[in-house]
């Protein structure tokens, strides 16, 4: 048996097992857990216990049933009553959400029929990313928007043409990365993303960048940036 030699490290990995079983760890953490499980039989046995708990928690929740139609009727009666009292005003035309909505409907298959469509997708994607980044003054940022542009560890990335707004958001979320700048004045729809709020060692940045590069559905090109 080749158990993890450092007990604190093992404890840290063990604490992540429930999220590993549920599939909600970042790629980086999931890889760490997988490596530890491969070399530690006792940890693997404990992981089996976690999986058992997960299965029974799902089973238990699935036996809880569903609410009756009464709940929905009550909800929409309340909404109707509110609207009758004070109808809400339509929000002004929101380009960001409309473009995002359009992009979310574009699938790789739909786009594959011509290069023109692919170019259009890149332009739409750029518009979405711009919409994410350009915020009104005084309004807190949305997902993936960094508050500071200069601190931390960075990479430049070109997103794959077929990546949807959801893909990009999920990708950034999984790596706890934030979009800070772009498109950069380097051509090719490059964006600067922040990998960490602290300055990481070069080899750590290289490892993250290699992992991100493997996400070919979302990432077309990526490189570390000083």
């Amino acid at each position, binding site marked *: 048996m080749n158990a993890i030699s450092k007990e604190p490290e093992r404890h840290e990995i063990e604490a992540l097992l429930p999220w590993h079983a549920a599939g909600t760890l970042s790629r980086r953490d999931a890889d760490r857990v997988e490596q530890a499980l491969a070399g530690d039989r006792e940890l693997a046995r404990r992981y089996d216990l976690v999986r058992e708990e997960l299965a029974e928690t799902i089973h238990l*929740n699935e036996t*809880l049933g*569903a609410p009756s139609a009464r709940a929905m009727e009550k909800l*929409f009666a*309340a909404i109707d009553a509110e609207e009758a009292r004070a109808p809400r005003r339509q929000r002004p035309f929101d380009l960001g959400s409309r473009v995002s909505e359009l992009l*979310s409907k574009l699938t790789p298959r739909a786009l594959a029929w011509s290069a023109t469509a692919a170019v259009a997708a890149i332009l739409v994607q750029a518009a979405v990313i711009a919409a994410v980044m350009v915020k009104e003054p005084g309004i807190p940022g949305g997902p993936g928007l960094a508050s500071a542009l200069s601190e931390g560890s960075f990479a430049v990335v070109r997103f794959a043409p077929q990546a949807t707004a959801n893909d990009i958001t999920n990708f950034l979320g999984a790596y706890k990365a934030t979009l800070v700048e772009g498109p950069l004045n380097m051509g090719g729809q490059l964006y600067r993303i922040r990998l960490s709020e602290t300055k990481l060692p070069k080899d750590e940045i290289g490892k993250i960048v290699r992992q991100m590069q493997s996400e070919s559905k979302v990432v077309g090109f990526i490189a570390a940036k000083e």
Partner: protein
Amino acid sequence: MQLTSDEVLIGRIANGDRLAMQVLYARYHVRVFRFVVRMVRDEAVAEDLISEVFLDVWRQAGRFEGRSTVSTWMLAIARFKALSALRRRLDGELDEETASAIEDPTDDPEIALEKKDKSAMIRKCLVGLSAEHREIIDLVYYHEKSVGEVAEIVGIPENTVKTRMFYARKRLAELLKAAGIERGWP
């Protein structure tokens, strides 16, 4: 077919689109209901609460900024509503209910039969956990929330999320041991 994203639905709801509200309700009402019913242990109360949760979504959609996913945002609202409802109950009522769910070690015929079924016993012990421990186990295992998302819903630091999950699992192991199932952990 690609589904309309939750964020797009929220944008439409903010503009008063009832159909978008119906779609969002259809997508999440069962999960939100189960989360709430596990907290309040009363289906009728849970039904009332989910109406309130979705009414809040309708009212606050225009202020949703996308800092978290829509489901995380809704579960945080649901948790707040459930805790408020629990506070309105008589003190101690839930603790007695919790204790009666698991602590009786007597081997009546029914329990003896359940001992043969480890899965059923794990589920029984999951029911017997405290509200705090049930909540975190459900969020992680059933609602598939990450460490960060649980922290946001429950309002505690990420390290506390991991610690609380560890102690919830430890308590589950203790309940199983008391029920005659030794798992060799912790």
